[in-house]
């Protein structure tokens, strides 16, 4: 059974005013448990609005959101529970940090869940470890940390609620390459250990290509596609046409294909491209070198 499902989900902002705008338009979607999903789309494509429906921050104008097969709005009082089960990390989450210590800030979510101190402590320690924060940092004020560390504290704050589904809105925005790789690799490791469902919104196809099993593309309030990563990159030209950037390496292989060098595969990461090229070169050359 799908862990998250939307049925004809529609959301319209400022109904009845001159600014009325449909941000999500009849979206049908099924996300299976344990998947790592990359979410893409322009600013204003509706992706941010869409993800805010998954944890009940926004209520659909029409249509449904199902979590574990249950309509999350069936009982309004349950909505806070839904937020614990579907953790949402906003863009630039370090700006929501407010406690005096890193420990307390990570504990804010679990504490709101009404857990006991022992369980809170276990979770804080575990997530801090998962996201690569050293234990001695927990006693420090979060405001003394570097930008990348603060971001990880904020992410840990949501992870510590141990949500079934974790959604991250551009977790690497504004970071340098080292900070970006660190966060992505920690999230990946967390995913592999927990086997939970993760959705990552990103503008960088190159980042998404590196980890996502599936890719969801929003365009002009509609679901453009939701499919296996390889299949989505198979439509690289269409994706370029709606103005999204495909990885540089994909562009190279598209061009090669046009020039008559077709490898019959969609290429979207450098290691894959290397292996593919070497295999073809060696395959033809026979032994070892090229």
């Amino acid at each position, binding site marked *: 059974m799908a862990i998250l499902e939307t049925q004809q989900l529609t959301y319209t902002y400022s109904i009845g005013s001159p600014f009325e705008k449909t941000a999500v338009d009849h979206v049908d979607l099924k996300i299976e448990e344990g998947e790592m999903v990359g979410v893409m789309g322009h600013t204003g494509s509706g992706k941010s609005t869409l993800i*805010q429906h998954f944890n009940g921050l926004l209520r659909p104008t029409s249509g449904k959101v199902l979590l574990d097969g249950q309509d999350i709005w069936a009982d309004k009082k349950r909505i806070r529970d839904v*937020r614990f089960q579907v953790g949402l990390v*906003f863009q630039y989450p370090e*700006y929501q940090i407010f406690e005096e210590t890193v420990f307390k800030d990570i504990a*804010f979510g679990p504490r709101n869940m009404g857990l006991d101190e022992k369980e809170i402590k276990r979770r804080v320690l575990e997530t801090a470890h998962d996201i690569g924060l050293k234990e001695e940092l927990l006693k420090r004020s979060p405001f003394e940390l570097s930008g990348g560390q603060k971001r990880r504290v904020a992410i840990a704050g*949501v992870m510590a609620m141990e949500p079934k589904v974790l959604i991250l809105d551009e977790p690497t925005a504004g970071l340098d390459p080292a900070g970006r790789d660190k966060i992505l690799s920690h999230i990946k490791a967390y995913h592999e250990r927990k086997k939970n469902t993760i959705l990552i919104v990103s503008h960088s196809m190159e980042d998404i290509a590196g980890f996502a099993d599936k890719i969801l593309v929003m365009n002009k309030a509609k679901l453009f596609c939701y499919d296996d990563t390889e299949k989505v990159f198979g439509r690289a030209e269409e994706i370029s046409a709606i103005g999204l950037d495909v990885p540089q390496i994909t562009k190279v292989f598209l061009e090669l294909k046009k020039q008559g060098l077709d490898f019959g595969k969609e290429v979207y990461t450098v290691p894959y491209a290397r292996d593919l090229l070497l295999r073809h070169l060696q395959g033809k050359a026979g032994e070892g070198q090229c």
Partner: protein
Amino acid sequence: MLRDVTIGQYFPGNSLIHRLDPRFKIVITLIYILMLFTGSNVVCLAVGAVYTLIAVYLSRIPLKMFWKSVKPLLPFLLITAVLNILLVDSGDVYFKWKFLKITSGGINISVFMIIRIVLLIMGSSLLTYTTSPITLTDAIERLLSPLKLLKFPVHELAMMMSIALRFVPTLIEETDKIMSAQKARGAEIDTGSFMTRAKNMISILVPLFISSFRRADELATAMECRCYNGGEGRTRLRQLRAAPRDVIALVITLIFYAAAIAVSIVFKLLTQ
């Protein structure tokens, strides 16, 4: 949502009222307020009402918008009206229960007060609807500029005002975002006991303060980089030039003011 606040909202347009010099508009609004408070009877308010309706018509701003700015004050208006009706003791008595009395005087005062306040709100809304906040600040700065001679920091105040105006939408958006983020961590902002709500307010206020200070710091640097050095020797891109229509508008307002006073005197003489 927070985004829907309409206080001081400006409605861009090109009506006659929009085009008036903001300095004149401020002066005219002040005269208008005087006018509403000079007359002490319903008939004289009618003059004010006619004036208001003409101005509203000329501004091409839908009446609905004025209703929007009056609406939030309705409960306050109604409570004071009821208190006036029940407590004022003058004229014919219609109803009496213990110390509470409904009298013609009370009803008169209530109705009078409601009309006066509604007109007041409509008039000042007209000023803010037809003048962008920044133009308004600018006009205030210029109207107050004689005070510079008294070492009053007119420019600094105006600069503070205009920066505040500039950052209102930014901060509203930011507050919205932080609220959503904390809600996503299970913070109860609209529900829960007083203590949990207070605690949760902290989770919003602390980040908001921190980010505001960061913004202030960055903005100060950016202003320095653009050679900001206080009001001394500054020139302005926005030029204000009074046109004949501004003078005419002022004269018309003064005529209405005189009319209101006249009507008020005549009415007083007649009723005595």
